[in-house]
């Protein structure tokens, strides 16, 4: 399974690097949209939490165990704290939810995802990190919660 993910990701990377933008990017009018996002689903309280423990309690109702089966990809030094590329992936079975937390941000929870069956535990996004911080990735697998963390230093600008 992992092999197929990396193969498809490589294909995306190479297409994005040099290819014309237009060929691969589809657009449609808003009216044609099939999906609607439901604001009522938003876990407002969890996003207001100031600690990892509180955020996870509000989001999942439980506490995580450390796991070596979560890959958290972050730069050691982020070139710009406003746009820090973060990837998370996991080989754990039956992943139903994933989340990212940044412990030094004003609010701890950065983003959370609910996965349908068949959706891979592999995603990449970009976060704002206010300052050098520990970033935590959390995975819900077979009903249990797992976590791993990594430090990210945020570049200190020299002149501008």
């Amino acid at each position, binding site marked *: 399974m992992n092999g197929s993910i990396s193969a498809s990701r490589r294909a995306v990377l190479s297409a994005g690097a040099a290819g014309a933008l237009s060929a691969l990017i589809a657009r449609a009018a808003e009216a044609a949209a099939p999906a609607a996002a439901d604001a009522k689903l938003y876990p407002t309280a969890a996003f207001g939490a100031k600690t990892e423990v509180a955020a996870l309690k509000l989001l999942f109702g439980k506490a995580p165990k450390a796991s070596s089966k979560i890959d958290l990809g972050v730069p050691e*030094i982020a070139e710009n704290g406003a746009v820090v590329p973060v990837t998370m992936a996991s080989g754990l079975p039956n992943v139903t939810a994933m989340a990212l937390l940044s412990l030094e941000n004003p609010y701890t929870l950065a983003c959370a995802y609910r996965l349908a069956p068949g959706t891979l535990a592999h995603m990449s996004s970009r976060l704002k990190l206010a300052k050098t911080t520990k970033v935590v990735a959390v995975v819900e697998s077979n009903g249990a919660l797992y976590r791993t963390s990594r430090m990210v*230093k945020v*570049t*200190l*600008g*020299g*002149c501008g």
Partner: protein
Amino acid sequence: MTGKGGCVKHELRILALAALCSLVPLAARAAPTAADIAAGRKIAFTKTLGNCIACHVIPGGAQPGNIGPNLTHIRVLVPHRKDAYAIIFDEPARKPQTPMPPFGRNHILTPAQIRQVIAFLYSHK
């Protein structure tokens, strides 16, 4: 990036010589206090003040730049504080191609602030 160490040392020797001939007023002053050192540290590490860390490795400073010489062993590189004062005050006057700003001449720092920075830099053994 490599092989510049020798150049830097050579430049510093020239600097030190030049500084000896300078006319920087340096009356005998009281030994720097802990408050001077703390103030100098703040100036060295603050972008809007001296921002020395932008170009120099300095003990205690995160993510230093690498344009200027490492100041960890400034006592060896520039044995006399009055020479350091001359360098910080107006380095381009003695070495036209230096990127080092003339902190004193251009009023980036006051003489008192320069002395505080020196107190901080020389506080590292």
